[in-house]
């Protein structure tokens, strides 16, 4: 019988044991395992969970009894100190010697502690073992007892450092992350994604300090601060060092195995060191001149070592190691996969960034756009699993690769990844609940489930973050279709119709209230999906304002204002075409001052006032309306703004009066309810200063009239509007716009913007021209009439709301008291108020 000694009982050492005993041939070997830590191997990846309940047992990979059952001799609390290669023996700290036939080094790594002056002081910790965490918890209690506002810093803004930062925050300490590089997670993120992530983390309450070189730790016996340079200090009561790892390769050094220049025990693709009887796996092994600080490669190494020792010599380590990672912080999505940074010699990158939403996406593809090479996701990593699957399975990319980044999401138009059906069964579709494509499709095929909601309740897929919903819906529908079953695009369990069908029914039956609609063509009591949808149809049919049936309106419509992060609302008066008199500007300023509102100029050329409490809304609007303002409908799925440049009124290039025309259009379509928000723009010449082609409708002055463009938008899926008609006069332009908008309102799916709607329209822009200009459907007279009716029926709904005592009632926070909500907390930023951050 041969003896294998495993040095190190960490995650990878354990995996070696587990894989080994699964093998039939393992019976001929004796396994002897040494671990320096007091307990059997535990799940270091989920170490931070120890903070929740201090339950070390819960983290164990396997209990001690497991090793016994499998005839593994596990000796913990005993460090191996020497290897005698000639005698094939090892010695331990307790001066005991053991002989081996094969030796497996799985000694992992230790945190790197930079040689900073004062780093030995009390209150400085590393973040690697359960004992480290116990030490941190005890110390945190101590300093919090002295000072409830105690601060803790984490040295290092990498993957682990951020996890440590969240951990100290959860301990009730004020968290600071100090990073030497100019960006966070320097190995995974580029500079732009790092700054997006930074904003999100700061909003969560983490303080981030970049490009800081710590020169000295301050304090006598215990740490009291960090010094970065002259006059640059940070007072802290505790420090966690997370500045990288160093392989624990001391055993390799003492017995003269081949070592890397910067440490690590060199191995080949059999995991053999320079001594063929000694293997190294996990974070101590230097493979391809790299140390891999992730478990997945470590597990693969363990597997290769097992097979090699058992003489299954064809099993070799992969040449390329997947370093994809997803940060497992609560509340922040960050993922980096494949090659996150890629030289332009290899391919192109597609980038998307929206700091207002904390979103960043970068996808790297080969020059021919056929192969995915890697990417970075911040803010929304719901596509991580599927992108990762595409990468791992080396799948060919769809034609419009940019959709991988910007996605044809609106209107749920299916997955951007070609068909989800092309994925392998093992592909994880719902990452929150770990549901694979196979589980979803099989449940439909064997008739355990017959609908999307069945799948959701059986597998729990989509019940987490919900990001996978479009894909699950597609899988369910496609599978049902492949079985020859009917799939209907219905609104929800209460109405078994599409929006367009319901629009037709409500119109023909002349139904005007929600209850009537439910009773005559629906069932049950409705829900948050069908209520606002029916409200929107009523608005499009009758131009009902949101005051009429406030209980079926989307929350923002119900209170005629957008609800903000802390339950307060924003106030946005209409400023048609962006033109405003100084007098009116002063009114806005006075109102902002009086009610202590945060004010900001928007991209739509008007002014948003944030932070109004529900009960303040009527008074604020009364002042604005008295000064001649109207609702800006910023809360509604309706016309927002028609942006304009100054045009020929002032601009020396101007071909026509863009401001006047913008004001005319904005006033014509204000209050118009539609399947999604609508934006317009008018530019005075082709220099396009109003960015009209980034709008649902854009008008640009040219020689001999206006050019009319439709179906563009900015936002997450930017699209340039397409030319509908050239050199037309004002009147014709309005006529075409009436027809176009009404046709869109009638036929689009809920929450589908004009660009997505045009994508779906058979024949595209050419067909739209035929309808709007040539009237091939013979509906234009009707469309114009309907639009004129809506234009004539316009009312300012805020005016209506405050003039009616009954409808004003809904704006008080309490029914039985005039008190305000005392739960709302503001903090200040750049001399204005903003909401206190969540948690």
């Amino acid at each position, binding site marked *: 019988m041969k003896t294998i000694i495993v040095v190190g009982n960490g995650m990878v050492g354990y995996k070696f044991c587990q894989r080994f005993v699964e093998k039939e041939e393992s019976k001929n070997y004796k396994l002897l395992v040494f671990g320096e830590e007091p307990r059997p191997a535990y799940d270091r990846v989920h170490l931070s969970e120890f903070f929740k309940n201090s339950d070390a047992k819960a983290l164990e990979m396997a209990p001690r009894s497991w090793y016994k059952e499998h005839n593994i001799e596990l000796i913990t609390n005993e460090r191996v100190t020497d290897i005698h290669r000639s005698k094939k023996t090892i010695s331990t700290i307790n001066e005991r010697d053991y002989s081996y036939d094969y030796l497996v080094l799985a000694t992992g790594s230790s945190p790197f502690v930079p040689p900073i002056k004062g780093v030995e002081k009390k209150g400085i910790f590393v973040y690697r073992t359960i004992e480290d965490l116990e030490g941190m918890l005890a110390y945190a209690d101590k300093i919090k007892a002295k000072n409830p506002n105690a601060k803790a810093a984490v040295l290092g803004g990498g993957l682990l450092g951020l996890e440590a930062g969240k951990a100290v925050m959860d301990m009730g300490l004020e968290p600071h992350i100090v990073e030497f590089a100019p960006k966070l997670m320097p190995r995974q993120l580029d500079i732009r994604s790092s700054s997006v992530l930074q904003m999100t983390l700061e909003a969560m309450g983490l303080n981030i300090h970049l490009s800081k070189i710590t020169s000295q730790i301050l304090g006598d016996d215990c740490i009291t601060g960090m010094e970065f340079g002259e006059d640059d200090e940070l007072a802290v009561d505790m420090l966690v060092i997370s500045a990288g790892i160093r392989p624990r390769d001391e055993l390799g050094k003492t017995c003269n195995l081949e070592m890397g220049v910067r440490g690590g025990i060199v191995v080949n693709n059999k995991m053999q060191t320079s001594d063929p009887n000694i293997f190294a796996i996990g974070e101590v092994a230097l493979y391809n001149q790299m140390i891999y600080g992730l478990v997945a490669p470590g597990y693969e190494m363990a597997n290769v070592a097992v097979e090699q020792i058992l003489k299954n010599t064809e099993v070799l380590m992969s040449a390329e190691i997947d370093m994809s990672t997803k940060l497992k912080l609560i509340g922040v999505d960050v993922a980096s996969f494949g090659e996150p940074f890629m030289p332009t010699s290899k391919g192109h990158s597609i980038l998307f960034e929206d700091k207002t939403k904390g979103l960043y996406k970068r996808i790297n593809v080969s020059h021919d756009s056929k192969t995915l090479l890697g990417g970075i996701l911040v803010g929304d990593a719901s596509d991580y699993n599927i992108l990762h699957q595409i990468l791992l399975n080396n799948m060919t990319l769809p034609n419009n690769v940019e959709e991988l980044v910007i996605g044809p999401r609106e209107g749920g138009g299916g997955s951007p990844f070609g068909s989800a059906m092309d994925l392998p069964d093992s592909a994880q579709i719902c990452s929150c609940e770990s549901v694979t494509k196979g589980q979803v499709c099989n449940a439909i095929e064997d008739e355990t489930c017959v609908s999307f909601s069945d799948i959701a309740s059986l597998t729990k897929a989509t*019940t987490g973050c919900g990001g996978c919903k479009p894909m699950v819906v597609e899988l369910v529908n496609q599978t049902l279709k492949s079985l020859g079953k009917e799939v209907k695009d219905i609104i929800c369990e209460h109405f078994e119709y599409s929006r367009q069908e319901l629009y037709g029914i409500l119109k023909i039956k002349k139904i005007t209230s929600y209850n009537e609609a439910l009773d005559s063509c629906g069932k049950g*009591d409705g829900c948050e999906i069908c209520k606002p949808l029916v409200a929107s149809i009523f608005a499009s049919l009758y131009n009902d304002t949101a005051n009429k049936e406030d*209980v079926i309106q989307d929350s923002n419509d119900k209170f005629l204002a957008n609800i903000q992060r802390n339950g307060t609302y924003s106030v946005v008066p209409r400023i048609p075409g962006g033109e405003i008199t100084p007098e009116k500007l002063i009114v806005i300023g006075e109102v902002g001052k009086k009610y202590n509102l945060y004010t900001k100029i928007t991209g739509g050329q008007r002014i948003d006032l944030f932070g109004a409490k529900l009960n303040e809304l009527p008074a604020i609007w009364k002042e604005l309306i008295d000064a001649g303002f109207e609702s800006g409908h910023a809360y509604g799925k309706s016309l927002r703004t028609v942006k304009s440049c100054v045009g020929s009124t002032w601009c020396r290039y101007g071909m026509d009066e863009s401001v006047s025309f913008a004001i005319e259009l904005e006033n014509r379509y204000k209050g118009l309810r539609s399947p999604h928000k609508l934006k317009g723009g008018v530019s005075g010449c082709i220099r396009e200063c109003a960015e009209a082609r980034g709008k649902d409708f854009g008008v640009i002055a040219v020689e001999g009239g206006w050019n009319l463009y439709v179906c563009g938008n900015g936002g997450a899926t930017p699209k340039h509007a397409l030319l509908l008609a050239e050199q037309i006069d004002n009147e014709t332009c309005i006529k075409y716009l009436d027809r176009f908008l009404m046709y869109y309102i009638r036929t689009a799916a809920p929450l589908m913007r004009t660009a997505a709607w045009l994508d779906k329209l058979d024949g595209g822009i050419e067909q739209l021209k035929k309808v709007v200009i040539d009237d091939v459907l013979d509906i234009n007279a009707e469309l114009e009439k309907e639009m004129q009716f809506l234009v004539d029926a316009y009312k300012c709904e805020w005016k209506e709301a405050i003039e009616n005592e009954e409808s004003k009632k809904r704006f008080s*926070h309490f029914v*039985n008291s005039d008190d305000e909500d005392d739960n709302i907390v503001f903090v200040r930023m750049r001399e204005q108020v903003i909401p206190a951050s969540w*948690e």
Partner: protein
Amino acid sequence: MDSILSKYKTTKESEVTTWFKAAAVADFSENGGACVKYKNKQIAVFNFKRKGKWYACQNVCPHKLEMVISRGMLGDDRGIPKIACPMHKKTFSLETGKNLNGDVDALAIYPVKIENDFVYIGFSN
């Protein structure tokens, strides 16, 4: 922050020690909600006219701790009466308080009775 949530405990009708007279029935819109202040608590009360029932629960959403549930939208999920939070559309059963479309903590539920056109909410000490 947790202290906000710990104020609210589901109360069964049998446990009620105080029936708080909140407001007149007419102050609540049909199939809508409103918020009632009781000592340092905020309670969302719903007049679910379509079901002919009244419901009450904590006004604070367990997800982001905002005082917003009363501004949500009523509905049913396969017959279970529910309220959808206006912030992120989390839905909660009005009978058990359970989150129906995720695993946010449940809402605390309180009994409601109507007497002489007044709405009363039940609390236990």
